[in-house]
């Protein structure tokens, strides 16, 4: 009888699928890389804090000094100047913007660059008691001219102008005279707020505050104050732990992810391409580097055991679905390297394997030596 009650739903017609299997493969690969980083970062929690101010590590020491987060909010803070125009594209090798005021304690930094989007994340230091995803954090998102910011929390948030939609947006008091909106879509976590504003004519920025401690006051007030104090057009070159003898196979930087933590751990993901992504949506070449002294896998299935060697270092070589290949190298000056050519054409440009790219790399394991 109960089967009959629900029977009319058995053959409910479905519209054409919008499930994107290529995107699932790309996002899955990304998540695997993030899990490797997370597994290594957690293992490094015992490292004594050696970094006095993480923000400085994302920029050259001889450039603008890092902004020291204020300890307490000040309602009299003045607004930082806003640019007259938005960049047509961002330079992925540079940090476009910097936080001014931030709630106290958000000392870890992660910068994510791309040609059309820029993100800067400040978070509290990782502790084993508090999962990273639940830690207090502030994320600044900025898109280039002619782009909108997606309403949700997608990692790739730059969408074509007019394509973001407006569901869940509410009017907000202008930010430094510019149109602003509260975004309810990006604030499902407790004590969160998301404020987006037109930082230049036709171009938008957004700040998302998550898990703000009670002691830091109202999340919306904090989001507004952070928004008012963003520094634009900083254009600070992003320092890296690696240099290649020549640009990899004529490819140019397309996106960087650089995270530096006050625990001493860090990770760097560099993506290169010639403007076009592969069939599965990856940039053609990706390089992941993080500190990890171990020369074996982690036995947790996140980093597999080495199966070969390169120049005396334990290594693991694998091929990918789209004719690409990955080279993992363990314990190189205390670092773990993972290089992936995501399609056959890129691998061919690199000479058929990733060994040459590895050999052309000069590494700087100490953050202070990054260039």
């Amino acid at each position: 009888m109960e089967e009959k009650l629900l029977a009319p739903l058995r053959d409910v017609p479905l519209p054409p699928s919008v499930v994107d299997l290529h995107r699932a493969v790309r996002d899955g690969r990304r998540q695997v890389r993030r899990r490797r980083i997370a597994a290594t970062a957690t293992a490094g929690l015992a490292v004594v804090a050696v970094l006095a101010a993480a923000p400085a590590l994302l920029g050259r020491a001889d450039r603008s000094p890092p902004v020291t987060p204020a300890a307490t909010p000040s309602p009299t803070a003045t607004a930082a100047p806003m640019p007259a125009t938005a960049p047509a594209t961002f330079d992925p090798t540079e940090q476009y913007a910097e936080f001014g005021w931030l709630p106290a304690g958000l000392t870890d930094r992660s910068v994510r660059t791309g040609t059309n989007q820029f993100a800067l994340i400040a978070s509290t230091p990782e502790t084993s008691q508090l999962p990273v995803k639940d830690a207090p954090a502030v994320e600044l998102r900025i898109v280039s001219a002619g782009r909108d910011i997606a309403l949700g929390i997608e990692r790739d948030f730059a969408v074509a102008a007019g394509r973001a939609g407006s569901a869940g947006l509410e009017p907000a008091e202008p930010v430094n005279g510019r149109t602003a909106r509260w975004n309810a879509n990006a604030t499902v976590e407790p004590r969160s707020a998301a404020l987006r504003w037109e930082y230049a004519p036709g171009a938008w920025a957004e700040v998302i505050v998550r898990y703000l401690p009670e002691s830091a006051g109202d999340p919306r007030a904090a989001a507004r104050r952070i928004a008012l104090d963003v520094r634009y057009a900083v254009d600070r070159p992003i320092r890296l732990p690696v240099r290649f003898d020549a640009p990899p196979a004529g490819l140019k930087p397309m996106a960087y992810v650089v995270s530096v933590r006050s625990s001493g751990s860090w990770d760097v993901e560099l993506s290169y391409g010639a403007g076009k992504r592969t069939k599965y949506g990856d940039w053609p070449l990706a390089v992941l580097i993080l500190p990890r002294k171990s020369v074996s896998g982690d036995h947790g299935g996140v980093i597999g055991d080495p199966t070969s060697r390169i120049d005396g270092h334990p290594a693991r070589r694998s091929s990918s679905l789209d004719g690409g290949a990955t080279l993992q190298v363990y314990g190189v000056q205390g670092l773990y390297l993972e290089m992936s050519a995501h399609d056959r054409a890129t691998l061919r440009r690199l000479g058929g394997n990733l060994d040459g790219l590895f050999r052309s790399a000069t590494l700087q394991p100490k953050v202070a030596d990054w260039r």
Partner: protein
Amino acid sequence: MRADLEQEYVEYVTSRLPALRRIACHLTGDAHRGDDLVQTAVTRLYVGWRRAREADNVDAYVRTVLVRVFLDEKRRLWSRVRLVDTPPEPAPAPAGDAVEDREVLHAALAQVPPRQRAVLVLRFLHDRPVDEVAATLGCTAGTVKSQTSHGLASLRRLLGMDTYATTGEGK
């Protein structure tokens, strides 16, 4: 992931996509929201494919991934909002009372609490046995039966069938 495993993953998901979409549509009450659910689930499956492919029953493993993504609290909060610019095209459907009945039933099912809904969907729309549903939800067979009973009661109440005779199903 090795190329052969990636190929295996792509072939598997491609072959099971219609079934996964149908379950997701029943769980969410909306084909497009269901596709969002499937997208998240198959991405999660990619990450765990090495383990999934070694399961005794890969299909059951994947249904578990799908249902657990659905039950994830944040996911449910997130899914309250549809982030599209234009309304999705309606599914092609024949007109008539059957369609109206189906829409009423779909709307009622969507209001049944998520875990009870998952039990009803898996048992009565996808014919999964009690033990498998219990494994999928990480609970006992007894809990599945009680959730079935509560879910059916909720559904009848929502359909205005409070006086509908019980059949002993779910006991």
